[in-house]
């Protein structure tokens, strides 16, 4: 069953078509990689899937609801309740500790629970770094805090934008291992990347070019 379905969506800025009639389905529990060079429309697509933008044309059905017709307030609620975001730049609040950063997502979603936030950090191997500020953590550790924050509210969709873009190989492997684990537990993952190594570990990979889906590849070796 599809968790997300894009039906003929276009995003037009003046005379520029950032996305041009894109259709896509993502099933529950699927791991999809969206690839493409700079300017291909990856970020625009991610913003639309992440409920931070709306298409000019077309429908975006998330969990049976057309989010293209939602108000800004409605999009905020969907983002809060259904989506976990992971960023290339980590985007941690620099004056809050690791555990407080995780709790911020709980604060906007429901009720902050420090114990649960600590468990989320433990899951990404950072239990002992919970009381550290972002400036006291390495890039890899900051990205893992960002992942713990994305997971804390048990979102239906985890959306990662270049999650390994600022990491060295060792930390990239740690993050990909976490994604594998999340996928094995049934999470739906959409990873936007320009790194073929990250794209190739996904279950399915689409490539964008000039706002259109240029190719779609299903990873036959996935899970082996």
């Amino acid at each position, binding site marked *: 069953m599809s968790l997300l379905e894009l039906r003929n969506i276009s995003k037009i800025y003046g005379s520029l078509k950032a996305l041009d009639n894109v259709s896509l389905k993502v099933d529950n529990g699927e791991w999809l990689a969206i690839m493409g060079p700079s300017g291909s429309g990856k970020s625009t697509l991610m*913003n639309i899937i992440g409920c*931070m933008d709306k298409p000019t044309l077309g429908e975006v059905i998330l969990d049976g609801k057309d989010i293209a017709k939602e108000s800004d307030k409605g999009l*905020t609620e969907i983002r*809060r309740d259904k989506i976990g*975001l992971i960023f290339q*730049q980590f985007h941690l609040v620099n004056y809050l500790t690791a555990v407080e950063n995780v709790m911020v*997502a709980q604060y906007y979603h429901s*009720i902050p629970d420090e114990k649960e936030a600590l468990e989320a950090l433990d899951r990404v191997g950072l239990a002992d770094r919970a009381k550290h500020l972002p400036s006291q953590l390495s890039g890899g550790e900051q990205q893992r805090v960002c992942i713990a*924050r994305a997971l804390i509210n048990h979102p239906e969709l985890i959306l990662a934008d270049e999650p390994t873009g600022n990491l060295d190989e060792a930390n990239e492997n740690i993050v990909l291992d976490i994604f594998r684990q999340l996928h094995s537990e049934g999470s739906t993952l959409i990873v936007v990347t320009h790194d073929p190594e990250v794209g190739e570990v996904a279950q399915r990979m689409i490539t964008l070019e000039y706002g259109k889906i240029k190719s779609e590849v299903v990873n036959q070796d996935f899970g082996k």
Partner: protein
Amino acid sequence: MTKQKMFLRMITASLIRRRSRMLVALLAIAVGGTILSGLVTIYYDVPRQMGAQFRNYGANMIFVAADTDTALTMGAAEEAASIINSSELLGMTPYRYETVRIHEQPIVAAGTDIESTKATSPYWHIDGNYPGSGEVLVGSDVAEHLGLGAGDSFNATYSSGDDSDSEEPNLGVDMKVSGILETGGSEENYIYMSMDDLNALAGENGKLQVVELSISATQDELKEYAEKISQSSDAVSARLVKRVTQSEGTVLTKLQALVFIVTAVVLVLTMICVATTMTAVVAERRKEIGLRKALGASDGSIIGEFMGEGLLLGGFGGLVGSILGFVFAQIVSVNVFSSSITFQPLLIPITMIVSVLVTGLACLLPVRSTMAIDPALVLKGE
């Protein structure tokens, strides 16, 4: 953990862990609070301080006879003065004036309670001593005219005008000059002696021309006392010494206006400083605001958090300001009025509330601008 606790945890963490940035705003609020608290303390304490200072300029009320047919006596004056709160009545001095002859020259002699003139006429400058029994204080103009100095003796005679036919010669009374009086005023044209000495010289008649009073009260309170006394007493008419009371009132009005203006200007400057700092803070934290929105924060929630930070800062700045304000007021009071002031605990919550309101107003526009931040743009670094 409740949402309220997390809210407090976030805003206190922001203020404490980003203290270098918030210190500027805190300093502005604390300075504003200090000026507000200090000036309000002075504003309320100055009338008391000024009243005490103005008492040095002499009596601020006089009693005279209610009409020409009525004699003013000490008994009537004391009864009238009983209306005045005893703690406010600093001194009351009776005066009987008679014309005597010294070296054949007519001179106005005042019989009075020498001791009480120290309270009602503290500005008297005496070259010599206050007079004792058989002694007089000679006004400097009289002394110059008669060629008298401290320690000199003279003979004073009194003629009522109706004993011209008396066969007995008026031998007068020998008196000694205890000191020369300088005031720069009309007092320099008189000689002063004790009431007993004047009664001995001119004969006792129990009548007074005037009673001077020094009262520690505001101009309005003095007016009220004067009206009450004049209404309740048949023998006494109470009048204000306008030269003193009006000066006191004018100075106080001007000072209080100055306090209002300075406080208003400082609060406006504080508001501008806080608004500028908060604008910089919002600009600096655009990514954080975008992130919070991406995580599902509503505009109201973001505004609430920034206002919470501002108001907490305002409250803390107000607390610091109210304490520093008292120190400021104390320094001013000690240096200007040479007396300390009493701490007004109510000023702490008042200063905190005003600081919170000023900070809240200053934060409104910068915080409102957070609504325009688009998470998709700022998180991409645009």
